[in-house]
């Protein structure tokens, strides 16, 4: 069977575009507003969320037959919370500066709607392998939107990419200016909206 036809591949690829958690399902918007001023923080945030999401999906899917139905939320939460603490500690140990910039937002992954949503709707009903791939796919979908938004915001807002000056000083001499609006949270709303528009326009055949 071709790779693109397997269930695992589908579990990974569908959330990338067709069911993108941010641009289609509109989940996890709050962190997308907060951490997308710079690409660096957006990438780290995307990686942490992907880590938490795929392993929480894996763990919950492994336990899905032994979790009592009426306390499943609490079990899911404790799994997610442990993973978030692990991610947070890793960031503090190895990427201290970025972890400082991200401040509470890594900790807030625990309240991210995507993680809980995938655990509830997918991991509880699918095999561990599929759930893991689904977590990876959703994480990648989330990260891709985050990074595109951060790309636009950092480029227009401060003229940099990943902290390096991209827009030449000559442009500033000619009268170009950074768009201060891009550093404010509403800019992320507008960019996400425009990205959704673009995606709908490209994928829907009218």
């Amino acid at each position, binding site marked *: 069977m071709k790779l693109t036809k397997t269930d695992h591949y589908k579990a990974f690829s569908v959330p990338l575009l067709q069911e993108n958690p941010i641009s289609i399902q509109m989940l996890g918007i709050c962190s997308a507003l907060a951490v997308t001023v710079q690409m660096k923080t957006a990438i780290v945030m995307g990686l942490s969320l992907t880590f938490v999401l795929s392993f929480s999906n894996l763990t919950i899917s492994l336990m899905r037959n032994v979790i009592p139905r009426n306390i499943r939320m609490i079990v899911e939460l404790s799994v997610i919370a442990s993973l978030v603490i692990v991610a947070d500690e890793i960031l503090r140990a190895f990427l201290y500066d970025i972890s400082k910039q991200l401040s509470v937002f890594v900790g807030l992954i625990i309240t991210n709607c995507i993680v809980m949503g995938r655990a509830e709707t997918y991991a509880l009903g699918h095999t561990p392998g599929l759930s893991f791939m689904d977590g990876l796919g959703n994480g990648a979908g989330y990260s891709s939107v985050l990074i595109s938004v951060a790309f636009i915001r950092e480029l227009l807002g401060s003229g940099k990419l990943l902290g390096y000056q991209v827009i030449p000083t000559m442009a500033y001499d000619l*009268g*170009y200016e950074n768009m201060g*609006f*891009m550093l404010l949270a509403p800019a992320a709303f507008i960019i996400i909206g425009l990205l959704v528009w673009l995606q709908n326009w490209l994928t829907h055949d009218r």
Partner: protein
Amino acid sequence: MKLIQTIFDKSRRHFEKNGKLAFLFPFYDATETFFFIPGHTTRSDSHIRDSLDVKRYMSFVIVALMPPFIFGIYNAGYQSNLFSGKSLDLIPVFLCGLALVLPIVAVSYLVGFFWETTFASIRNHPISEGFLVTGLLFPLTLPPTIPLWQVAVGISFGVVIGKEIFGGTGRNILNPALTGRAFLFFAYPGNMSGDPVWVAVSKAKEVVVDTVSSATPLAVSKLVESGDRIESVLSNMDYSFFTLLMGRYPGSIGATSALLCFVGAGLLVFVGVASFRIIVGGIVGVLSMGLLLNLLAGESTAAWFSLNPLYHLVMGGSAFGIAYMATDPVSAPGMNASRWIYGFCIGGLTVLIRVFNPAFPEGIMLAILFMNLFSPLLDYFVIKFKLKKRIVNV
């Protein structure tokens, strides 16, 4: 007239289906209906059409915008020449103003027109005339020193985000011109606020002018210490009430002259385009909120509190906003009662923002955008209230 008619008739075949220039039909249509009342018929019931269609409607607004526009050109030139120490005669002042203002208006129209045509071609609907008004309103709210590329960015944002994503003219919830201005205000605050932006001092003669400050009346009032009277500080700076009313002071291009704005507003009300309820409501809102703050004024409160409410009406852009922005028929509510409330809240909020928020000296822009968001809600409640008064099943 005959001649124009024949030109249109002869060139029509190129623009109709299968013609060489069929993709430009919206453009052709727009130009033709600018000269003649269109012969379109309605597609469904109610076959009565008012000759006051969208195009005439918008043309009236353009006509009403002429007084502040022309005065804006004069004023921009006057301030520039005054601060550069050049001749203050009418003609050089006017020429200087033209050189300052016309490029801004031209860029605004060109870029706005580009977006309008793009969307009209993709969506296959006629070019709407709304942008004629937006394209003129927008530059009138800008300082004369604004860089042209920022005008282009601002009008693009206003037209695309403020209007086209909602479906074009008639469907926008925000006033597109103000959306563009608000965007510029937050995106490039250095070019939209602060003392140096309001007067275009020409680089050649920067010698004469250290004595005069180019601060706007609003900026001056903001700095007045509590205990002092704003009125006296203003008149020390040569901003008497009469100057403020006539509008010969630094400020946004078209928004300085309260008197001409109200003349334009009167014209709009007279031809039935603007709702007098919004305008009167706005004026009453400004005055009553100003009076209320006067009552609250004490020893320790900011100087703003004790300002004569009439000053709120003539300073800055409040008159322009109430006359031309708040009355935008699309983003304003449609019921008479809600128009009163809408106008009143705009006036009141303007004063509140001015007095209580030192970061935004000009409150009218935010007040109008804020109330735009509420206008569907106001209509909803007014309609609900009216339905309640009906007698059931009669």
